[in-house]
């Protein structure tokens, strides 16, 4: 990849500024910072380059690359419950957002809105029993799930092959195990350090 300086491309720079204004209230504006762009390695660039062709249904491939509905942080309520909203847009077989970040383990309340012309279901990981929410077209649903350990959990639409066409999502639970579960040894180096 060629990392050209934005200053040598006045048109790009102007466009960048415009976009930043347009997206000032949006987290995604951070992606446009030169400092972020500089961090992109060639593999990530190739993925980003591929996106226009695989972020729509039935373009480069039959379905779309998942999880492609963006990322959102669950909000922690006064009651300690984390909450997030997930939207199903028309004709996309997509969860928006498709990556939900929980700052730590606990209860996550999800509110779904199905704006699609298809019947969907949300099939959710939860300790105790997996949960499912039916989402008839133009209806919503709500579920409270419990995830108590750091890691990556999968959710998806179990109707037909909606999952294969894009309706897969992830819940990322950040955080650590309780102190008394940790190994008695000095702090260790982790990968990348």
């Amino acid at each position: 990849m060629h990392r050209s300086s934005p200053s040598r491309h006045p048109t790009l720079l102007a466009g960048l500024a415009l976009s930043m204004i347009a997206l000032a209230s949006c987290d995604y504006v951070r992606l446009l910072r030169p400092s972020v762009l500089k961090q992109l390695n060639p593999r990530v660039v190739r993925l980003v380059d591929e996106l226009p062709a695989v972020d729509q249904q039935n373009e480069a491939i039959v379905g779309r690359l998942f999880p492609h509905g963006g990322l959102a942080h669950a909000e922690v309520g006064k009651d300690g419950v984390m909450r997030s909203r997930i939207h199903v847009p028309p004709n996309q077989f997509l969860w928006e957002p498709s990556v939900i970040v929980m700052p730590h383990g606990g209860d996550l309340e999800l509110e779904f809105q199905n704006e699609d012309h298809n019947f969907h279901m949300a099939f959710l990981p939860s300790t105790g029993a997996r949960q499912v929410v039916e989402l008839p077209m133009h209806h919503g649903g709500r579920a409270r799930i419990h995830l108590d350990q750091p890691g990556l959990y999968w959710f998806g639409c179990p109707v037909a092959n909606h999952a294969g066409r894009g309706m897969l999502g992830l819940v990322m639970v950040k955080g650590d195990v309780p102190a008394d579960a940790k190994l008695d040894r000095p702090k260790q180096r982790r990968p990348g350090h």
Partner: protein
Amino acid sequence: MKSMKLLMPNGALVAALCTVTACAHQPQSPVTEQGRAFTARDAAETHAAPDVASGVTADRIARARGEPQNWLTYYGTYDGQRYSTLDQVSAGNVKSLKLAWQFQAGVIGLIASPATFAFEATPIVVDGVMYVSGWDGYVWALDAATGKMFWRYRHAIPLDVPLCCGNVNRGVAVASGKVIYATQNGHVVALDARSGTPVWDQVFVDVRAGESATMAPLVVKNMVLVGSSGGEYGVRGHIDAFDIATGRRVWRRYNVPKPGEQGSETWTGNAWQWAGGTAWITGSYDPELNLVYWGTGNPGPDFDGDARPGANLYTNSIIAFNPDDGALKWYYQTTPHDVWDYDGVNENILFDQGGRKLLAHFDRNGYLFVLDRANGQLVRASKFGNRVTWGDIDPTSGKVTVRLTPSAQGTEICPGPAGAKEWPHASYNQQTGLLYTPVMDLCGTFTTSRQDFREGMPYWGGGAAASKEGNRGYVKAIDPATGREAWSHEFPHPVVASTLSTAGGLVFIGESTGEFDALDAKSGELLWSMQTGSGIHSSPITYSVNGKQYVSVASGWGGWMKGFAPELYGETRGSALMVFALP
């Protein structure tokens, strides 16, 4: 610059980005449904299990051989014999054994370790109710006579849980009205045995350190004992005890000492911090001596011994400890300074012979160790593996002479990296006085490479590629009084299922290609066989309900196939518990 073109195309970017949540306009629709358990069956058709578990106490488990209709603890009895006095199914009538019922769980959606999950659990049976665990956090309570489900429970397991080998669980423990198990991500969870709802939940390993859990807990007195997995991640192995009533931790013992502690002289520098010595197979227990016997795993890194000079205590050891506080009574290290990944985790079978209290341990290094279980003194070491080239062990002194070690360019050594016997268990038949063990006959090419430790990453210090050709398996009957083989039955692939021996003169065994077999305990002759459809890497049990004897086996190929039967990697998968009885 291509990525810039993507990011700046005439406003399309803005439009595209604004479809995402942060900026999107979301039309509101009526919320019509609240989340519910996955199938209607969960809500409408499952029932409370009969209250059979509240009467199970440690005292009753200690006398479990007196109630052979039940399988009350992981090995059936505290002594680890996997021997049942049930004799309705016998060498004379086993030909008529038929499928009574089966339970199938399958897999829904994405799971951790999707190519290697396996059905390895030993069920527990109490007065007609069977409790069995699976991959990915599952526990089921079933009617042991019909297979009808009473309840199920699932602990959500993350996709990125640091498993070494497979998404597996080897079983639950039952006591005081609770079903207790260790989840793959290291929670000890106690469920109400009637309803399957959680009573307490304690975290006992650190997934960020590469730890996990796969073994079945052991109930001792008022406690439940669990051991850690993760020996391929440079962890410090440990065994923890929790109070059954409250879930409160009673003690934790590390299997590898810190500097200054007893045994630390067998380590140098910081190596103890990544020392291994995990405890991923359930121990056995002698209530009279008040000693728990547990096997410990390989040191870390697995193959690069130069990274950890010394004997590396108490890795690859049989340890005997006091269950009240976890204090070590004695140890016997079967493979000092292991550089072949010959974990010493395999079961310890307690039996008495000639007035002596003995212990038998088929080690992965290819030798059977018979010890005096009161003091850990060696009675005899004898070779049971077919091809054993890594070294020799003197039968009476136990002195180890190493012949072959891993090298940078690779060394061909036998047995292979999973040893001459995988974790599945041997049994001891009180009628014949023989031990029956599954055996793997394969070799491997072992290499070393220097590796810096990084927390949460595999820490092998090399690798081992198991041989793909010429691999064989056996069930061997061995006389513990002499170490000699009474008979041997050969199979076309390594045998990685547990044996079950019964007073009906039978030895049950599962094959890696799915056959479930009954052998004559006296001769090893094949008397009955049934194809279950997927390889068997589990432990058959027997029990009875209303006077009818059942034999069950979990069928579902997986686990560390690369180590124990690489020629069968990618074979058909399954997840069925099959239960047999006479018509």
